[in-house]
C-alpha cells in the first residue's frame, strides 16, 4: 500500500485520467482494446471501402483461395468472403454487445433487488434464477425462435426482427450469473462499515445503493459482461450454425462458418476466416474486460 503522495499527481487527476493511466499499464488489455477497436472500425467502415456486394454470385470463381480479386477467397457460390465477413461482423458484434447489455442490466437489477430486499423477495428471485439456470437452454432457445420468428419478422422485417429476437433470447438466458454475482456483492457490501458510516451521516437508502454499494460491486460484473459478449457471439454462431439464426442470405460469422463446414477439405480458408474473427473478437473482449476491472478499481496500485 502506498503511503506517500505520488509526486506526479495533480489536482486535476480525475477518475477518468487515473483509470486510463492504470489501463495503459495492462499490455494485454491495451492490445485487446486496439484489436477490438480495429475490428469495429473495419466492420463499420469496411463495406464502404471494399464495395463488392455480399451477394454477387460468380460461379466461375467458386471456392477460390485468397487472391488479389478476392483477398479472403470465395465461397461455393463465388461470393466474396471479405465483403461477407465485414458485413457479418456488424451483426455478430452488435448481437454480442446488445445481448451483453440486456444480460448485465437485467442481472444487476434482479441481483440488487434480491440483495437489498432479502427475506422472501430474495428467496423468490433466487428461486427464479435457479429455475432459469436449470432450464435446458439450447432446446428452449430453438423453440422460442421457432415460435416467434415469423411474428417478429412480420412486425419488424426479416433482419431487424431476427436481430431483436436473437438478442432478447440470448440476453434473456445469460443474466443469471450476473444476478448471483451482484446479489453476493450486495449482501457483503451492505454490512460494510463505510455503508453504515454513510447512513450515519444521513444518506437515503437509494443513495446508499446507487453511490456506495453498486459502484463497489461492479468489478466482477464488468468481467462477467465481457465474457457475456463473447458467449453471445458464440451463441449467435451456434444458432446460425443450426440454421435458426438470421436468414441464410444474410451473412453473420456463425452463418458463414455453418456454410463452410461441408467444404472444409477443399476450402479450409472459408471456415478459418469467420472462425478466426470470432476467436480474435472474443479473446480481445476478455482481455479488455480484465483491464477495465483493474483500471476502474482505485485500490489497485499499479
Amino acid at each position, binding site marked *: 500500500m502506498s503511503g506517500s503522495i505520488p509526486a506526479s499527481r495533480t489536482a486535476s487527476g480525475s477518475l477518468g485520467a487515473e483509470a486510463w493511466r492504470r489501463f495503459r499499464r495492462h499490455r494485454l488489455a491495451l492490445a485487446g482494446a486496439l484489436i477490438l477497436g480495429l475490428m469495429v472500425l473495419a466492420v463499420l467502415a469496411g463495406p464502404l471501402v471494399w464495395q463488392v456486394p455480399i451477394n454477387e454470385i460468380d460461379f466461375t470463381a467458386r471456392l477460390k483461395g485468397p487472391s488479389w480479386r478476392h483477398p479472403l477467397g470465395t465461397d461455393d457460390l463465388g461470393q466474396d468472403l471479405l465483403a461477407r465477413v465485414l458485413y457479418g461482423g456488424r451483426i455478430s458484434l452488435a448481437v454480442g454487445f446488445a445481448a451483453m447489455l440486456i444480460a448485465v442490466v437485467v442481472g444487476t437489477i434482479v441481483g440488487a433487488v434480491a440483495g437489498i430486499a432479502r427475506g422472501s423477495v430474495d428467496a423468490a428471485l433466487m428461486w427464479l434464477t435457479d429455475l432459469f439456470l436449470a432450464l435446458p437452454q439450447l432446446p428452449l432457445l430453438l423453440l422460442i425462435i421457432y415460435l416467434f420468428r415469423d411474428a417478429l419478422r412480420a412486425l419488424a422485417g426479416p433482419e431487424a426482427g431476427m436481430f431483436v429476437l436473437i438478442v432478447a433470447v440470448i440476453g434473456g438466458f445469460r443474466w443469471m450469473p450476473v444476478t448471483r454475482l451482484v446479489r453476493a456483492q450486495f449482501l457483503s457490501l451492505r454490512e460494510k462499515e463505510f455503508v453504515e458510516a454513510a447512513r450515519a451521516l*444521513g444518506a437515503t437508502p437509494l443513495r446508499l445503493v446507487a453511490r456506495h454499494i453498486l459502484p463497489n460491486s461492479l468489478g466482477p460484473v464488468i468481467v462477467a459482461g465481457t465474457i457475456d459478449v463473447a458467449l453471445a457471439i458464440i451463441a449467435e454462431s451456434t444458432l446460425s450454425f443450426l440454421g435458426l439464426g438470421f436468414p441464410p442470405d444474410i451473412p453473420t460469422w456463425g452463418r458463414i462458418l455453418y456454410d463452410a463446414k461441408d467444404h472444409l477439405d477443399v476450402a479450409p480458408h472459408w471456415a478459418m476466416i469467420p472462425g478466426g474473427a470470432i476467436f480474435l473478437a472474443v479473446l480481445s473482449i476478455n482481455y479488455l474486460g480484465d483491464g477495465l476491472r483493474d483500471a476502474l478499481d482505485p485500490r489497485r496500485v499499479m
Partner: protein
Amino acid sequence: MGAHLLEIRGLKTHFATDEGMVHAVDGVDLALDRGETLGVVGESGCGKSVTALSVMRLLAMPPARIVAGEILWQGRDLVPLDAEAMRAIRAKEIAMVFQEPMTSLNPVYTIGEQIAEVIRLHERVGRRAALDKTVEMLKLVHISHPERRVHDYPHEFSGGMRQRVMIAMALSCKPKLLIADEPTTALDVTIQAQILELLGELKDRFGMAVMLITHAMGVIAETAQRVVVMYAGKVVEEAPVRELFSEPRHPYTQGLIRSIPRIDTAAARKTRLEAIAGVVPSLLEPAPGCRFAPRCPFVRAECTARTPPLREIGPGHKLACVLGSP
C-alpha cells in the same frame, strides 16, 4: 437550567435471536449537556455501542427493537421519529465516528468526493463551494496539503489519517453532538493521543458535545468530564471523572480501575496485573438482581434478590449498588 442536549431515559434495546431475546441494553439512563464530553466505558458487549446506535437509530430493526425508553434530543423524543426525520438529524445534529477507520470510507471515491457528498446532502451549496468547504475541513483536522489530498483515495491514507478524514466528514455539517464509538481502538498509541487531542480541539472550536465510547480507562481519564460506567446493558455508576478515579464506588468500577496496567507499581512490586474474575453474563433473558453479582467480591444475599436502582449518592455521582451507602 433547561433541557439537556441529549437525555436517555430507561432505554431498553433488545435483539430477537433464535435462542430468545437478548437484552443488550436494559434500562440505560444518561444525560449530556452542550459542550460536554461524556465518557461511556465498559467491557466488550456491555451495550455501549448499542446505546449509541440506538440514539442514531442505525440498528437493523428487526432483529433489534427499542422496547422501552425515551431518547430526548433537545427535549424531543427521537424514538418515534420516521426514517425521513431521522435522516435530517444525522450529521446535521448528531454525527458519529466509528471504530474502524480502515473500512469506514468508500474505496471507490476520493475522500473529497465523500466529504462533499455529506455537505451537499445537508446544505444547499454548489459543487465548488462544497469542495472549498471540504478543503477547509481537512485543514481543520490537520491533514497536510489538503488542496491536493482531497483528490486522493482512502487507500492512499494511513489509519490515523483516515480517522481524521472520518472526523472531518462527521463534523462537516457542524453537529451539536459527536458520538465517537471507540475512535482510537484500532490505532496505535501515539496516533491515539493525536486523535484524542484533535477531538478535544475541535470540540472547543465548534462548541459541540462529545459522547466518547471506549473500553480504555486511560482514554476516559484524558478526555472526559463525566463518565458513565456500563455493565451488561445497565449503567452501574456515573461520576465526574476525577471522582470516579479517586473514589470509585461500584465494585465493577473499582475492578476496572485496578486492572489498568501501571508501570510504576508493577516495576516496584512485581505484582500481577489484576483482572476481574469471571466473564460477562449472558444477556439472554437475564435473571433479576444485580448483573455483576456473580463476579462481585462483596456479593450479599440481597444482590441477587432485586436489581439495585441507579440513585444519586453525591453531587453528580450516581450508583447502582447495595453497597452504596457506607
